[in-house]
């Protein structure tokens, strides 16, 4: 089984075969969710921990009048909150954006993994910390950056996150989001999103081809958005980091 969670954790540490097998064993409860379907909705009982195996999903909150803010993206290998089962009910929703495969890890299994494997536990803590660091960066994004910077920053982040699980193709990755969803993520109007995308294309920083985002000049896009990949904490493998930089300048 090619589990993207294992791939992701390998950015932090090398897991033993036993640990890898233990995780795989816990990811057998898999269900498929269609595009734009909820995985779990605000107010639902929490249940097990969701792990995105394939596809693309988001965490969002909706206001009573229908306005929606997307507060996180999930790419394959991302856990939708490792400790969520401690709470009774969801205070937000998780929705698939692209058709997705989602594993549910039962609370018992999460606790058992953590009681049995200290290295694995540390790796899972790392992934939680990265998730929180991303959330902080997103607050900075909507609080301080202008539209071009917000979007450029988001695109840089996505490429790095796909890379971390080996799901990029050089400087390209999947972007299954509509402009409305981008607007709901970046706190912009759809007009503003449209205009900003046009500008990024015009400056030959990105191309969008169907659902594929290609970053034409990663270094320039990083510079534009003051992007510094350190908050993703992927630097445990220094070689890989340098590769990204080299591609960006090419």
């Amino acid at each position, binding site marked *: 089984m090619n589990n993207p969670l294992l791939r992701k954790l390998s950015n932090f540490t090398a897991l033993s075969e036993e640990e890898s097998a233990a995780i795989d064993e816990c990811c057998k409860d898999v269900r498929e969710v269609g595009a734009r379907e909820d995985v779990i909705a605000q107010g639902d009982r929490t249940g097990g921990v969701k792990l995105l195996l394939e596809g693309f999903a988001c965490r969002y909150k909706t206001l009573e009048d229908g306005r929606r803010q997307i507060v996180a993206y999930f790419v394959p290998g991302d856990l939708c909150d490792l400790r969520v089962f401690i709470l009774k009910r969801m205070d937000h929703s998780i929705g698939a954006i692209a058709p997705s495969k989602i594993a549910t890890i039962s609370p018992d299994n999460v606790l058992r993994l953590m009681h049995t494997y200290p290295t694995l536990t540390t790796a899972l803590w790392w992934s939680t910390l990265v998730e929180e660091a991303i959330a902080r960066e997103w607050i900075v994004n909507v609080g301080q950056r*202008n539209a071009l910077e917000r979007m450029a920053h988001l695109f840089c982040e996505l490429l790095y996150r796909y890379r971390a699980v080996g799901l990029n193709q050089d400087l390209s990755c999947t972007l299954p989001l509509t402009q409305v969803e981008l607007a709901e993520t970046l706190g912009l109007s759809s007009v*503003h999103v449209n205009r900003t995308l046009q500008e990024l294309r015009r400056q030959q920083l990105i191309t969008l081809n169907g659902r594929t985002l290609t970053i034409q000049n990663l270094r*320039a896009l990083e510079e534009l958005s003051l992007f510094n990949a350190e908050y993703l904490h992927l630097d445990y493998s220094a070689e890989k980091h340098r590769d990204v930089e080299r591609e960006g300048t090419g």
Partner: protein
Amino acid sequence: MDFVEVSNVTALNQRMRRVLSVFRTVAAHMSKHSGPSGESALHLSGRIGAIGRIVLAPIFADGVDLELLVLDELLLHAARPEQFSISGVEVRLAPKAAEWMSLAIHELATNAVKYGALSQSRAKIRVAWDVEIRLGVRILRFEWLETAVRMTDEAPLVPGFGSELVERVIARELKGEGKMLFLADGVRCSIDIPLSDSRHRHE
């Protein structure tokens, strides 16, 4: 993409000089019309922010998109899409024009929050522009029109920095013409400036 500021040092120096000139204009105004010091500090900080955003943002070699500039300034003032409309042909401003226009729009938006156009539920702002050829020169005709604003008594009796910027500074710096009118139901501001070909000039 080609950033102006890394492409050559002369352009960078020109930019620095422009920034200093913007600060001098702001400082001159504020020393003439010093209000309560707390409020002055607040305004100064807002203006520095506005200048910083445009100056530190990379200006692409082919100029700054006017619509994005307006959208960004409105976004910063938390304007909701239903509070304004924007329409105009595609216009790319040379860096100097972008900097002054950005500051002018910042002042308009700040006033709109303060006096109603962005803080009263029925009020609306219509931002529109077109480009006209006069004697062979492309002229940007920009208008900011507020409607359905209930002007409060707090509205300034003496012309504020926004007026000075639009009516005097823009005329001087951008060789254009500006008019700021405080009408019964909101502000009407029009700015006409010649457009240089931003592709080849970074001034």
